[in-house]
């Protein structure tokens, strides 16, 4: 598993704040490093990460070299209905991944 999404809490009432925690295993290569043989390691950053809740975008980010390796992104969404919170990412060399979690909303 190279990426993970967690919802805190995973069960909520309508209108509640839910914290979304996204973790991607990724080197976020800044293009400034060299390997043991002295060859430059090419830059490779996560150029796009999108998170959707009930198929609607709730967060999007482009990451620069200033975001540490294995990026952690924590943000909030407002619970409305039960459904999937899913994110996908793509890096500069075509690497990609996705993960999702289910939010349960107690309605009525």
């Amino acid at each position: 598993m190279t990426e993970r999404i967690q919802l805190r809490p995973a069960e909520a009432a309508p209108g509640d704040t839910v914290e979304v925690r996204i973790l991607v295993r990724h080197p976020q290569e800044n293009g400034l490093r060299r390997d043991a043989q002295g060859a430059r390691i090419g830059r490779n950053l996560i150029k796009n990460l999108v998170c959707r809740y009930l198929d609607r975008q709730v967060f999007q980010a482009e990451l620069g070299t200033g975001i540490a390796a294995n990026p952690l992104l924590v943000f909030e969404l407002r619970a409305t209905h039960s459904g999937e919170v899913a994110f996908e990412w793509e890096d500069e060399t075509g690497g990609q991944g996705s993960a999702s979690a289910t939010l349960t909303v107690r309605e009525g």
Partner: protein
Amino acid sequence: MQGRSPDESPTARGTNAWRRRFVARSGAVAAWTVVGAGPLGRASAATPQEQQADLDREVAKRLPGVRAAPGRVQIDVPAVAENGHSVPCTVSVDSPMTEADHVRSVTMWAGRNPKPFVIQMRFGPSNPRARLQTRLRLGDSQRLLAIAEMSDGSYWSGVADIEVQLSACEDGSG
């Protein structure tokens, strides 16, 4: 920094320039130590005006023509980080986050990093707060800047200063 040759590719030139700047500033630390300067030794070699000029150049690249008013944006980082590899950071913007009045985007820079751009993100009314918690990679003691774009078209900014004791760039594992 192991085995770096005088490579003349554009990226390498940039890196070497950055290294020279770093070395120059390290020299300045020694001088400051002699006269008993405060703990912000390395950052002190770049004046606040120089740091602001660095940041202004970066803002102009991403948000051309934008003039942000100070306020509504808060960057929370520790005052001192032992090393720059993974520094906890929370950026938040004061906004009701309604359909009519919300934060559209937040962009952040670290002016003394080799590449100052940190992150650009989009928010909307589905976020109860415009707030991101993440971990930064910092090459130096420096000023961080975040600019928020609001749904009414206004721009607001916040800054934070941080002292980094061991750069994320020094042991090559960055």
